């Protein structure tokens, strides 16, 4: 079992959170649907590197990110357009647009690999923000596992009003029957990565433990050590700072 270092934390971390962190890092280093384990770890490393990237900082401070040209400090494992997309998602998500997305896809990155890249990039963002909040070092990224991507394309994925195809709850059958659990209403945020079903399972695991399980979100009596208004205040403030409409 993977051992993670929480040394220096000013408070003990719940066991279910530790298990989720181990699960997420195991997920990151395993062969995925469109990327190998080595490529997924490279995506993870790039997500982390983006938070210290000088070009991203300059773009963030610019009125228009496209006005600042240059190269990211990447390690060469991934194509430059992929690196750029990872850095944009990690450091400047509020200014992503459909035009930007269409440019990424027109540049040669298929939608399936894009969705998986979003999954890995954001998982690492979450792990890093947890460590930053708690005051501990970011978790060491895992060694990649060998193996080939599955190249699995879920039959139920179709246009649903987002930039990427998604699986509607009524189409989550067969291998995807478990995808949305027992929630009566499946919000788009849970469907968002469903073109790559394992990324939905990872997102749900992260959200279930770090927030509340999706089926329990509508119930205002569900809480943790924080009461629900405190939880929603923190959540809303994060989203306001990230300028996220959703």
């Amino acid at each position, binding site marked *: 079992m993977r051992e993670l270092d929480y040394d220096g934390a000013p408070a003990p971390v719940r066991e279910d959170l530790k298990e989720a962190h181990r699960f997420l890092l195991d997920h990151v280093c395993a062969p995925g649907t469109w990327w190998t384990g080595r490529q997924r770890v490279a995506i993870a490393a790039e997500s982390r590197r983006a938070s210290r990237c000088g070009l991203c900082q300059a773009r963030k401070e610019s009125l228009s990110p496209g006005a600042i040209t240059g190269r990211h400090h990447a390690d060469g494992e991934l194509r430059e357009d992929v690196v750029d997309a990872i850095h944009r998602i990690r450091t400047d998500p509020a200014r992503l647009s459909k035009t930007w997305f269409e440019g990424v896809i027109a540049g040669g990155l298929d939608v399936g690999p894009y969705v998986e890249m979003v999954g890995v990039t954001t998982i690492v963002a979450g792990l890093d923000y947890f460590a930053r*909040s708690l005051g501990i070092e970011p978790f060491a990224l895992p060694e990649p596992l060998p193996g080939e991507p599955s190249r699995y394309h879920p039959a139920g994925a179709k246009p649903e009003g987002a930039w990427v195809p998604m699986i509607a709850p009524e189409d989550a059958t067969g291998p995807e029957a478990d995808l949305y659990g027992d929630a009566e209403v499946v919000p*788009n945020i849970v469907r968002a990565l469903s073109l790559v079903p394992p990324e939905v399972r990872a997102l749900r695991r992260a959200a279930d433990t*770090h927030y509340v399980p999706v089926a329990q979100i509508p119930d205002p009596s569900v809480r943790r050590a924080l009461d629900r208004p405190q939880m929603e205040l923190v*959540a809303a403030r994060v989203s306001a700072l990230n300028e*996220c409409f959703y």
Partner: protein
Amino acid sequence: MELSVVTGRAESDGGVPHGARLIAFTNAVLGSDDGAIARERTALRAELSPDAFVDVCALIAAFSVVDRVADATGIPLDPMLHAMSGDVREELRLGRFRSAANTPGAR
């Protein structure tokens, strides 16, 4: 909850216990001043139980993921949420965010 605390227009607790401290810590973590994070962490830790403090860290992590997934996939706001949240969206002026363009009729 007073919505003005969410937008940073108020420095009160906004009707939420320890609200001002929660906002200040969240601001610090999403900012770039490591010293401010350390100060706000100490201050928040002094006011909350250990488990509640870890909950705050977990929530910041969770919504750092969720916001990026939403913005990178262009998902629209769910119709039911859209219908229910008009007043809140107007008060928080959420329509000014670029990602509002992903939800028809949100701007």
